[in-house]
C-alpha cells in the first residue's frame, strides 16, 4: 500500500516536472522566433517534409472520415426524411472537428514520432551536447524550425483534409442516399460560417504546436540509449494524442 502511494507520488512529480519542462521549452522556442530568418532554410525543409510526407495518410484518413460521418448520420437522417441535411452535418463536422482532430492525430503519429526519435537519437549520441558546447542553443537549432513547420503544416493539411472529407461525404451522400451533389454543397455552404473555418484552423494550429513541442521535449529528455529513444517516441505519441483530445474539448467550449 505504502509502495503504491510512493509510486503514485513519484509519477505525479515526474508528470509535473515533464509538464513544466514542456511549457518552458515552448516559451524558449517561441522566444527564438525572431531569429527565424536565419533558420528559414531548415524551416522550409521541415515544412516540406511534414506536409508532403503526410499527404497520402491525411488523404486516406480524411476521405474515410467524411464517408463514415456521411454514412452513419445519413442512416439516422433517412428515418426522418432529412437526408438533404447531410451537407450541413458533414461540412460543419469536418471543418469544426473531424478535419483538425483526425489530421493532427495523424501528424502526432507520423511527424511527432519522427521528431521525438530524431532528436532523441541526437540526444543519446551526444549531438545535442555537441551543439551546446559549440554555444548553439538546441532550442534555436532543432526545436524552433520544427515548431514553426509543424504548426503551419497542421493548418495546411487540415484545409486539405476538410476538402477531401467533404468530398468523401458528398460521394456517400450521392451514392447511398441519393442526395444531389449541388444540394449537398449548397447546404454545406449555407451552414458554414467563417468562425467554423477559422475556429477549426486555429485548433489545428494549436494542435500542431502541441505535437511539435511535446515531441521535441520528449526527444531532448531521452536517455538510456536506443531503448530510451523508443520510450521517448512512445511517450510523445501518447501524450500528444491525449492533449489533442483534451485541448479539443476546451477549444470547442471556448470558440463555439
Amino acid at each position, binding site marked *: 500500500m505504502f509502495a503504491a502511494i510512493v509510486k503514485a507520488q513519484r509519477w505525479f512529480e515526474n508528470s509535473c516536472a515533464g509538464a513544466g519542462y514542456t511549457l518552458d521549452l515552448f516559451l524558449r522556442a517561441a522566444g527564438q522566433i525572431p531569429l527565424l530568418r536565419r533558420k528559414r532554410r531548415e524551416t522550409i525543409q521541415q515544412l516540406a517534409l511534414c506536409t508532403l510526407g503526410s499527404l497520402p495518410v491525411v488523404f486516406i484518413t480524411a476521405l474515410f472520415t467524411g464517408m463514415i460521418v456521411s454514412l452513419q448520420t445519413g442512416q439516422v437522417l433517412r428515418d426522418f426524411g432529412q437526408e438533404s441535411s447531410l451537407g450541413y452535418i458533414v461540412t460543419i463536422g469536418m471543418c469544426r472537428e473531424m478535419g483538425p482532430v483526425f489530421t493532427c492525430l495523424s501528424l502526432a503519429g507520423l511527424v511527432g514520432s519522427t521528431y521525438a526519435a530524431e532528436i532523441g537519437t*541526437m540526444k543519446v549520441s551526444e549531438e545535442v*551536447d*555537441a551543439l*551546446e*558546447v559549440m*554555444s*548553439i542553443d538546441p532550442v534555436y537549432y532543432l526545436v524552433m524550425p520544427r515548431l514553426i513547420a509543424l504548426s503551419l503544416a497542421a493548418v495546411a493539411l487540415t484545409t486539405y483534409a476538410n476538402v477531401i472529407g467533404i468530398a468523401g461525404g458528398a460521394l456517400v451522400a450521392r451514392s447511398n442516399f441519393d442526395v444531389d451533389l449541388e444540394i449537398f454543397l449548397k447546404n454545406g455552404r449555407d451552414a458554414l460560417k467563417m468562425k467554423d473555418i477559422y475556429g477549426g484552423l486555429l485548433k489545428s494550429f494549436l494542435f500542431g504546436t502541441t505535437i511539435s513541442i511535446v515531441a521535441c521535449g520528449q526527444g531532448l529528455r531521452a536517455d538510456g540509449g536506443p531503448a530510451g529513444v523508443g520510450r521517448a517516441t512512445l511517450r510523445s505519441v501518447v501524450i500528444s494524442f491525449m492533449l489533442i483530445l483534451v485541448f479539443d474539448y476546451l477549444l470547442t467550449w471556448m470558440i463555439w
Partner: protein
Amino acid sequence: MRINAIVSPVEGIDETPSVAHPTPVSYRPMMAPAAIELCELTKSLSGRMVLDGVSLTILKGETMAVIGGSGAGKSVTLKHIVGLMKPDRGCVKVDGVDVTNTNHGSLEAARRKIGFCFQGSALLNSLSVFENVALPLREHERIPEPEIRRRVEEKLALVGLAEAGQKLPSEISGGMKKRVGLARAIIRNPEILLYDEPTAGLDPVMGTAINDLILDMQKKLKVTSVLVTHDMSSAFRVSSRIAMLLKGRIVKLGTPAEFKASDDPLVKQFIYGESEGPLTRTPA
C-alpha cells in the same frame, strides 16, 4: 620550458588536505597561469557519488591526462568543465571565469575558448563532413562563404581529411569521425582542447594516429589539452601530467615518468592492467 619540468607533483600537492576531502590534490600552480581550475568538485548521479571533492589545476599550455576505470568520473569531469553539468558543490574556473555560477553570456565566452572532442565524435548525421566543421563558423561568425570554405579546408587538411568534405558521417570510419570531430573542435581556434576517450574503439594503428594528431595540435596550436582516457599508452604518449581518478577522487597526480616508476599498488594495477590488486579487491 617544459610544463612537466615546471611543476613537481611533490611540490604541487597540498600537504594538508582538508578533513572532509582527504584527496591530496589541491594543486598550486607554480609558474604558468591556470587555464582550468577544479575546486572541490562534487557531483552525485542517481544517488551515487561520481565526483567527491575533486580539486585540480591545469596550467596553460600543458597536456593533462585524466585516467581511471569506467565510472570513475572522468567524462563527468569534462562535462563540468564545459558547463554541460552543474556540480552539487564546488566550482570550475576556465581562464578565471567560474562556469558553474555564471550567466549565459559568460558561459558562452568561456565555451568560446574550448574545443571539445566527444568520445563518439557527436557529428551531426544530417550534415556532411564539411558542413559539420563549418557549423560553428556559420552560427557564430559573420564571415563570407569563401572565407568559411578556406578555413574549413585548412582544418580538414590539418587532420588529414582534405578529400572527405562532401562525405556524410555515416560514410566514414570511426577514426575519420574522430578526426572530423577534432577539426570541428579547432575550427574557431580554441585555447583549450578537451578530448573524451580519443582512442576508444579504434585499432592500435588508428589510435596512434590520433595520439600523433593530439601532439600535433599541441605543437601547432599551442593549446592547453585535457584528455580523459583509460588507454595508458595514449596517456603516456601525449600528456605532460597525469591525474588518476578513483571513485570520484584523484588518488595520484604526477608526470608520466612518475607514474611509470610508482610503487603504489593502485597505480601499478591500473597502468599494467592486472586483474588482481586493490582495484578489483571486493571489500570484506
